[in-house]
């Protein structure tokens, strides 16, 4: 199948558009997620979507109300993200401990509801996603998300960068880090929920974590980190969708492998450029 043939199928066209919107969005947000050490946080929110979906079906079954399941998952994920952000701030528990019990607890609750409703087949779609199920409504939702994430990053770039580097220094420069952390956690939750259809809960982290990780290997400044990360975020999912059509492979895993391939290329490039030690960080003694 050549590119024009691929483009002629509507469902593939939507998949490619979706990849081109969500890839750079997740990658740019991922720069701050990875620098803040929040990769596990985003992964846990993706997995907790199981509970949001289960609650949606429970609500529908018991009350007859057919609310858009995406809205219920979004509300649940934002609530969980806010709760975790509050616990990070208000307790002496380590963030990874808070994430572990919040995430396993909510997933366990979700699985119990699914078992009770006898809807195990739901798990397949949540865990692995279905990029070809994207329709115009999904694309619109994804475009709105991209605008919100892009707007937030443009307007809050300075406070977000400084508080990522050192929160205490940011506070002494008059930045209110508390609300910024909450807003960032909510934005991660929204991004994860809207992107679930593309890769599913199991693989979604690849979109958020791998592009900035690869970009960091070949970047010598923050501006280049953002730029390279966005380019990888755009190119790898696009290549993944095209390769999966050409080679008749499952699309989600192919997108992830395309990201991993770019990461390996960036590592090789960093070795070739001879500045690996620099990227490891550390000051000369």
């Amino acid at each position, binding site marked *: 199948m050549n590119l024009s043939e691929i483009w002629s199928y509507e469902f593939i066209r939507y998949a490619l558009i979706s990849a081109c919107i969500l890839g750079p969005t997740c990658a740019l947000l991922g720069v701050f997620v990875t620098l803040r050490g929040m990769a596990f946080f985003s992964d846990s929110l993706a997995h907790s979507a199981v509970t949001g979906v289960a609650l949606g079906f429970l609500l529908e079954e018991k009350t007859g109300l057919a609310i858009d399941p995406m809205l219920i998952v979004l509300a649940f994920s934002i609530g969980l993200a806010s709760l975790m952000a509050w616990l990070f701030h208000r307790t002496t528990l380590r963030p990874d401990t808070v994430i572990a019990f919040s995430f396993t607890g909510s997933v366990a609750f979700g699985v119990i509801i699914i078992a009770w409703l006898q809807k195990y087949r739901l798990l397949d779609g949540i865990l692995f996603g279905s990029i070809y199920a994207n329709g115009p409504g999904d694309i619109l939702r994804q475009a709105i998300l991209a605008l919100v994430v892009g707007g937030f990053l443009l307007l809050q*770039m300075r406070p977000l960068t400084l508080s990522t580097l050192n929160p205490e220094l940011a506070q002494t420069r008059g930045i209110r880090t508390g609300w910024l952390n909450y807003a960032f956690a909510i934005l991660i939750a929204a991004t994860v929920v809207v992107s679930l259809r593309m890769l599913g809960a199991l693989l979604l982290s690849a979109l958020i974590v791998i592009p900035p990780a690869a970009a*960091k290997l070949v*970047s*010598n400044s923050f501006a280049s980190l953002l730029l390279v990360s966005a380019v990888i975020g755009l190119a790898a999912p696009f290549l993944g969708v095209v390769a999966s059509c050409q080679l008749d492979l499952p699309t989600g895993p192919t997108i992830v492998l395309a990201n991993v391939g770019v990461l390996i290329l960036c590592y090789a490039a960093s070795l070739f450029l001879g500045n690996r030690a620099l990227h490891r960080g550390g*000051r000369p003694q």
Partner: protein
Amino acid sequence: MIAPAAQSFPAAIGRKPLLQIQGLGVRYGSHWALRDFDLDVHQGDMVGIIGPNGGGKSTLFKAILGLVPPTAGRVLKPSGALRIGYVPQHLTYDTSFPITVGEFLTVNHPARFFWCGGVGRKQKREITDTLERLHVADLLGQRLGTLSGGQFQRILVASALLQKPELLLLDEPSASVDRRGSDDLSDILEEIHRATSLSVVFVSHDLHFVSHLAKKVCCLNQTCCAAGDPETVLTDHLLAQTYGTTGHTWRGFQPSDPLSR
């Protein structure tokens, strides 16, 4: 003059202070880190604060910055909003964070309206001027994680100066630099202080650095034990009283010691 309860320094009496600390106390749980502390800082003051570890020096700075609430007393800024530039003792950050010195100073710049972390031409000029003043203009494009301790310290000072502060707070500015670096930093700070009448309050364990730079010294061990000119405060007797021991760190030390210059 020795003022065991450290209030206004004599030369400043009658002038309106920039910062007024009255009966300040800060308690963490049942432990008082700082109690009954009084200090007035006037425009152009250069105050050095010395004292043992756990003596409340960093807590004092945090209280001035509003990062910890006072348990007792108050911190007043009589002239209204006071612009404070703060240089922390340690800045823990991921050294693999790919950010250049120029980018670090850009995100530290207090300019309110700009997009995507960028600043205008005027602000860029301010950044390069500040680096030139600190004799580190060549570091602009270098990655922050690759700087030496002394270079990094100067970049932190530059980031504080970019706030256009009326008061500069320096927490152990000479801690991560060698003797020569410490002397250079002290000369630069003195030059900036002379040129701008900037008020500076700094904490240091390095008595040479303190005697070189401070015009007034306050000994802090939970409360102010002594305050006054360096010549009157930096004596074996008062230092022993401050540190609560008769160790040898400062024994025989005189501010006029050529080693301190």
